[in-house]
């Protein structure tokens, strides 16, 4: 799975947990919280979805890595189980 697949999958997860966001105008570099009024529950839902979809554990101290779509993609890429 390369970074582009990860980005695509992350966008799918994001629009599933928050179908009310305007995904067409998403800036992958910008914090989701600043773009979409993401609250702490949205952030947790996103972390849960990412953790389950990619099979990786996300400790609380790493939540900050999921702030933007791009930082989340980089985080997933560096934590993917070998062979995935």
């Amino acid at each position, binding site marked *: 799975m390369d970074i582009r697949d990860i980005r695509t999958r992350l966008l799918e997860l994001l629009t599933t947990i928050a*179908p009310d966001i305007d995904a067409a105008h998403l800036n992958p570099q910008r914090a989701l919280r600043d773009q979409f*009024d993401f609250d*702490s*529950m949205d952030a947790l839902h996103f972390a849960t979805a990412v*953790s389950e979809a990619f099979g990786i554990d996300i400790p*609380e101290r790493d939540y900050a890595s999921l702030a933007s779509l791009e930082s989340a993609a980089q985080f997933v890429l560096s934590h993917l189980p070998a062979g995935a």
Partner: protein
Amino acid sequence: MMRIEFRLPSLGADMESATLTQWLKQPGEHIRRGEPIASVETSKGLIDIESYDDGEIVDLVAAPGTLLPVGAVMAHLQVEDGARAAASPEAPAASAPAPAAPAPAPAAAEPAAAVAARVRLSPAARRRAQELGISHETLAHAAAAAEVLHIEDIERLAHAQAGAPGDARAAMRQAIGAAMARAKREIPHYYLGHTLDFGPAQAWLAQYNEPRPVSGRLIESVLIVKAVALAAWRSEGFNGYFRNGRFEPSAGVHAGAAIAVRGGGLVAPALIDAHSKDLPTLMREFSDLVSRVRTGHMRSGEFTAATITVTSLGADGVDVLYPIINPPQVAIVGTGALRDAPWALEGQVVIRPTLTLALAADHRVTDGRAGARFLRTIAELLAHPQEL
């Protein structure tokens, strides 16, 4: 068996109309009390409205796509005789959409002038209502939410009745404006603030979450909601409704959780019996509420059930949020952002995560002294999170 009308309920003092989007039951089908009967689009988003009765659907009166004023007959149900007497205790905030004892249906075309005898209208408002042909039901239900209807109320009703366009955001803003104007007009608010050391709660939370998968973790808001609910349950005068000139306490604490709606506005659906649920259960229900606000599957009962509200601006917030009471409730607790700040502890200045609580409460029910005790109780509970 008797035949009753199912009317569009009011999902709060700020709601005037809704558009029927879909029937979830068909004629001949059985429906249980609390089961969704239809999906409607309101200024608060898409909501599944629930039946107040057990019975069978006789016919569906309203067609999908129709804009209906609050109180409009949507369907007819066949129910057991007398079943209605015990109807809907959990829909107390509704501005009398479906009277417990069904009154004989008023003639549909009852002129505004006749209604004015019962509904208090200013003279200008009465004239305007006649000119605009506002229906009796619309007037009657609007009147249930306000003492006297003024001309601007009539203009708003006409707007709603005509199904005038105006995007969802404007409708939401208008709904919030109406409810908050009523709160500021009718409720003598008093405000109290209290800053607490959130360190113990944060440390407990980190320890709780550490071994758990993301889906099993808790967030700060759940601890705060639980603490407020427990404090409200142990105190007098903060949990319930002020209606008909007096305070009606509620046995259970149904904590309304203010949730921001993207694009503007907010809703505050209830976490039922929040005082008696453990944190993981409350977390699941809170999580589910937020998901359904996002995906548009709120249930009508959730909107009218809250007996006290908790509101927060989240991590991006400022130090203090001075909230406004959501009528007919009598108290609301706002939390500022969690913030590291200098704190005096055992004669030393230390840096602690601090949280400022602000209470707005109704002076017709309680005084500052009781309010202070209530806030201190919340702080005390948050200082001992393992007991929540």
